């Protein structure tokens, strides 16, 4: 039996399992908006952990980490791991607070909570716009990656592979909403983690173990062990910038923020918070090691070619069955991010546009219907972007983390200091996004931004505006309780 046939069989089984699991979500649902968009705010600790990590870690974790490490070495682990571990802190500072406020106010979308907290439609619209602008291209990136991977592995034409996976995702998101997404995240997250560990073990055996594999690399290319990158591109200022960027940006992705509303109780996030540093400490090493070792076997990959190093290594050193399974793990990573993005955007458009501006009196059933209809519409839009690949789409994706991190100071201000005037939060976001745009267009020199990433400038400018606004608001007695 050929590798392609095995991959297709395993892929078919995985997709069927995902679909059944996803469709099962609908039977537990009651049809209310809370149920469809937030799984009835009933997600427990274990599912919360898997749904957070499966949503957070896209295919970039599976394929991109190895590809980057192939070029820069172990330093990529350094700049990615500890900053992501710090997400544990923002799960407490943002997630726990957002859940409490969401529960007491009934908020369903992030913009609804942040704008509603300060009673500002303008702020709500601005938060919505920023989240949509940076998430839609990101959504389109998932079918692009999945389609390319399927084409390379099975020969299925790029568009048909991307469209096929999208249709399956649309089916279970349409029917089961957040509950289906969360349950499939458990399967997809477990697959990702189990298969990356198996891949490392199998590949390491071919080198005589993890130690000998690393020693072989060190003997030939010691620069791959440099903490600042084989090419010196990851200096200490990049370490500092990315350590700041990940914990601020991750909770501002709408599909991550919405997870906070789904918890059953305040305790549901405890497991995820403790587990995040464990995952980043140990599992982030796996694809990085494969990428570093890959240079010993395939030394001549250039640029984006290295993103295929993980599948190449697995195919080189393991059975066809394992190769097929690892590829399914990569597809699971694509799917677990895309389904969450689809649902998050559908939710935001329903709550922040349709209910807020089109049909304020719409009932729960109508909201769910609109949300469901938006799922295939947004999926088709994502596919269209994937096919057309309009100019600038990859630039927007590159800027997505900084662009969303620019919301962080305003979001924190809204969550913790409800006496701040919304204008200060709007100014903070505008200042942050101006810095992101200035950086992306090279209008602002790196020296003005305290390094090569705009995050320090965003935090200083956006944070300062919010602090001044909060102090002034308090001094002026603008506290809502005193009005």
């Amino acid at each position: 039996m050929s590798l392609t046939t095995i991959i297709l069989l395993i892929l078919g089984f995985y997709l069927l399992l995902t679909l059944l699991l996803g469709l099962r979500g609908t039977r537990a649902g009651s049809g209310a908006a809370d149920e469809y968009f937030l799984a009835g705010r009933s997600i427990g600790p274990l599912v919360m952990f898997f749904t957070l990590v499966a949503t957070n870690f896209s295919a970039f974790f599976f394929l991109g980490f190895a590809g980057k490490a192939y070029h820069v070495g172990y330093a990529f682990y350094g700049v990615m791991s500890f900053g992501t571990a710090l997400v544990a802190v923002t799960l407490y500072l943002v997630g726990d607070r957002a859940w409490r406020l969401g529960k007491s106010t009934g908020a369903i979308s992030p913009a609804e909570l942040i704008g509603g907290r300060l009673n500002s439609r303008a702020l709500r619209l601005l938060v919505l716009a920023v989240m949509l602008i940076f998430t839609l291209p990101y959504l389109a990136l998932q079918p692009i990656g999945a389609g390319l991977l399927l084409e390379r592995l099975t020969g299925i034409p790029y568009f048909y592979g991307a469209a096929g996976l999208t249709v399956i995702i649309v089916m279970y998101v349409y029917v089961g909403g957040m509950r289906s997404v969360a349950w499939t995240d458990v399967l997809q997250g477990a697959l990702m983690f189990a298969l990356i560990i198996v891949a490392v073990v199998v590949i390491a055996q071919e080198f005589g173990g993890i130690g000998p594999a690393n020693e072989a690399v060190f003997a030939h290319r010691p620069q791959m062990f440099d903490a600042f990158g084989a090419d010196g591109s990851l200096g200490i200022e990049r370490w500092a910038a990315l350590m700041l960027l990940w914990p601020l940006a991750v909770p501002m992705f709408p599909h991550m923020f919405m997870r906070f509303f789904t918890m059953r109780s305040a305790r549901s996030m405890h497991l995820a918070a403790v587990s995040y540093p464990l995952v980043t400490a140990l599992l982030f090493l796996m694809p990085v090691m494969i990428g570093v070792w890959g240079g010993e076997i395939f030394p001549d990959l250039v640029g984006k070619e290295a993103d295929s190093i993980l599948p190449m290594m697995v195919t080189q050193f393991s059975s066809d069955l394992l190769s097929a399974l690892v590829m399914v793990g990569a597809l699971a990573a694509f799917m677990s991010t895309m389904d969450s993005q689809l649902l998050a955007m559908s939710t935001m458009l329903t709550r922040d546009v349709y209910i807020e501006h089109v049909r304020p009196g719409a009932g729960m059933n109508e909201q769910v219907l609109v949300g469901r209809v938006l799922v295939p519409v947004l999926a088709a839009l994502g596919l269209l972007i994937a096919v057309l690949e309009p100019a600038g789409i990859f630039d927007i994706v590159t800027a997505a983390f900084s662009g969303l991190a620019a919301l962080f100071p305003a979001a924190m201000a809204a969550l913790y200091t409800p006496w701040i005037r919304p204008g200060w939060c709007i100014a903070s976001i505008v200042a942050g996004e101006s810095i992101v745009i200035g950086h992306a267009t090279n209008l602002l020199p790196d020296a003005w931004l305290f390094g090569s990433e705009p995050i320090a400038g965003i935090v200083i400018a956006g944070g300062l505006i919010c602090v001044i606004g909060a102090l002034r608001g308090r001094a002026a007695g603008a506290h809502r309780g005193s009005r």
Partner: protein
Amino acid sequence: MSESTPAPSGRAVWVVVLLLFSTAALTIPLLFGSGPGIAGLPGWAVALVVLQLVFAAAVWLFVRSFWTRESAAFDDPDRDGSSHSGPGGGRA
């Protein structure tokens, strides 16, 4: 209910923890060498793994002490006499 009542929250604890661990993480690439250490990994990478495991333990301690207490108060308002106060404040 007033929003201005500051709770004895874990936020202050987190600021200290965050500064300590972030500083430690940034000094690791400067203090530890690149030569192969445990499992042949770079010495600084081993140190970073250990730091994250210690950080996970710190998070666990935080969860057991501050966060669980706050969560219990929120989930069961009558348990400590307080009402639904989030980390550092009341509700909307």
